[in-house]
């Protein structure tokens, strides 16, 4: 400890260089800490976006294959099912020449309230959706993007089905990020029949709300078992699992980010090593004098290494604190600003901050060890002869 003031004053020798190096290390550690929050952040986002008591059932052959509509009634009759609704892709395009599209599905209006109770759709708007055959419930993101409001009439041109339909917007899905556009299945069915086509006898996806999370797994097995020997086998999973599979496609991207992070950390090692080398090189004379007055090689090595580690650790601690503060602020802001949405789930935990600190410690040791070793083993008489 008695050498700490000496080490500290050496760091203060060139304040700008010290601050710039510490700043670079702080930035790198902050970046690494933020990136390390990604896996946990994605899990949090998943929990926020998806329910673990909502189940999605699709054709085992793939999401683009249909299921018989009769499946919906059979699933509704299974124990533990609170509600079930189907999604059938309408593929309606608004202003097709401008390429304005959004996901629009034909659904059963009676089941919306029970299957997506967590969406907290206004009950009056839900009722209005039930009563108006040409009614539509639209996600807030789509409403905002197209400058629509409740009461507007909107026409969509069918791309998946050969019918163009007009809708009255009767309600919104109160989620800023939701792009979904729901229409009544019956409306689409009747329009198809009126156009001389067979009506809807299939569906794309069945959404099921289960009364108890503990009953989800048995229900998944029961659904798939029920339709095992039928013409269209099913694949059932929870909504969270469904989205997780979707997010897993991003894993490659995350890997690239982590590789880039590693390279950034390596660059910082080089920067810190360069700083340590410069700092040692310009002090050869002083180091020789310290050796002359009796400082051992080990002590010279230790103080120079400690200097690099102290600088790096201070930079790393700043970086970890900044990233922690930033994510805490985001989390706080997400509480009152829904536009930030899932960003509130990305929080630098204590464990991640400690990992950042260890990274800084590692950077300091790696960057300091070579110049410190070189300076320590340099002969004192030789240095005195060269420098003076």
């Amino acid at each position, binding site marked *: 400890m008695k050498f700490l003031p000496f080490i500290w*004053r050496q760091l203060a020798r060139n304040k700008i260089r010290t601050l710039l190096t510490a700043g670079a290390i702080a930035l790198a550690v902050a970046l690494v800490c933020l990136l390390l929050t990604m896996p946990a952040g994605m899990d949090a986002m998943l929990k926020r976006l998806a329910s673990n008591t909502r189940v999605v059932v699709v054709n085992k052959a793939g999401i683009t294959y249909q299921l018989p509509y009769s499946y919906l009634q059979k699933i509704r009759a299974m124990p533990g099912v609170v509600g079930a609704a189907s999604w059938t892709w309408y593929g309606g395009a608004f202003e097709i020449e401008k390429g304005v599209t959004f996901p629009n599905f034909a659904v059963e209006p009676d089941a919306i309230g029970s299957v997506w109770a967590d969406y907290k759709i206004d009950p009056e708007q839900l009722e209005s959706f039930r009563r108006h055959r040409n009614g539509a419930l639209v996600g807030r993101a789509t409403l905002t993007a197209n400058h629509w409001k409740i009461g507007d009439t909107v026409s969509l041109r069918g791309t998946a089905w050969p019918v163009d339909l007009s809708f009255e917007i009767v309600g919104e899905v109160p989620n800023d990020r939701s792009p979904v556009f729901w229409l009544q299945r019956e409306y689409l069915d009747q329009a198809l029949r009126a156009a001389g086509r067979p009506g809807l006898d299939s569906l794309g996806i069945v959404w099921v709300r289960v009364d108890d999370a503990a009953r989800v797994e048995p229900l998944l097995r029961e659904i798939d078992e029920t339709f095992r020997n039928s013409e269209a086998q099913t694949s059932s999973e929870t909504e969270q699992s469904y989205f997780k599979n979707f997010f897993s496609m991003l894993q490659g991207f995350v890997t690239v980010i982590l590789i880039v992070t590693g390279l950034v950390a390596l660059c910082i090692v080089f920067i810190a090593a360069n700083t340590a080398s410069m700092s040692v090189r310009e002090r050869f004379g002083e180091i020789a*004098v310290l050796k002359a007055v009796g400082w*051992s090689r080990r002590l010279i090595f230790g103080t120079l290494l400690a200097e690099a580690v102290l600088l790096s650790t201070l930079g790393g601690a700043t970086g970890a604190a900044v990233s922690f503060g930033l994510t805490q602020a985001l989390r706080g802001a997400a509480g009152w600003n829904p536009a930030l949405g899932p960003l509130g789930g990305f929080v630098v935990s204590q464990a991640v901050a400690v990992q950042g600190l260890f990274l800084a410690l590692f950077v300091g040791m790696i960057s300091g060890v070579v110049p410190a070793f070189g300076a320590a083993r340099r002969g004192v008489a030789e240095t005195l002869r060269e420098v003076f």
Partner: protein
Amino acid sequence: MIEIRDVSRIYQRGADEIHALEHVTLHIARGRFVALMGPSGSGKSTLLNLLAGLDRPSSGSVEVAGQRLNDLSEDELARFRARHVGFVFQFFNLIPVLDARANVELPLLLTKLTKADRLSRAETALRVVGLGERSHHKPSELSGGEQQRVAIARAIVSDPEIVVADEPTGDLDAKNATEILGLLRDLCRDFDKTVVMVTHDPRGESFVDEIHHLDKGVLRDSVAGGGGGA
């Protein structure tokens, strides 16, 4: 105090051998103020390095304060220097980010003294060299003569028997050079230090007790200085 017996020092520079010292034998008694003089490349700094424990001879024997230095390891030599030798250099070589007192305290960081004791001793050493009032000044705030006084305080703070000085007046004006030579002489007389100084400065001859002339690595002669008998 210092026994140099038949010492040679040969440096290898590429394929060439540089004979910096050849068969030098020298005895320096305790409490003497000694000058090593000679032209550049005569081997006087090499001899100073050997008797200060900064370097080892290629042959011969160096014994200082009853200790044979030839056989000591690097760490043992470092401990020897810390205990027995104080250093004064031509360019002062103070650490610019430390104030005068912290510079003087540096050798004491190797001891087990408490911080209060270290600071007290550093203050005392600064008072001995006449800089008691300037202990909190950084080197950049001191004149050349004052910086060399701080260096002398650093050299004596751990109370070594020997002080070696390599061209201590080489970077000073006449007035400051005379003061520094007087201070080194006082260290011998008042504190019983053995001071060995390498110098080109003819003023030094009148302060020292003995002068040893070297040329081309060979000790040519030893004469009495103006400060005492040979």
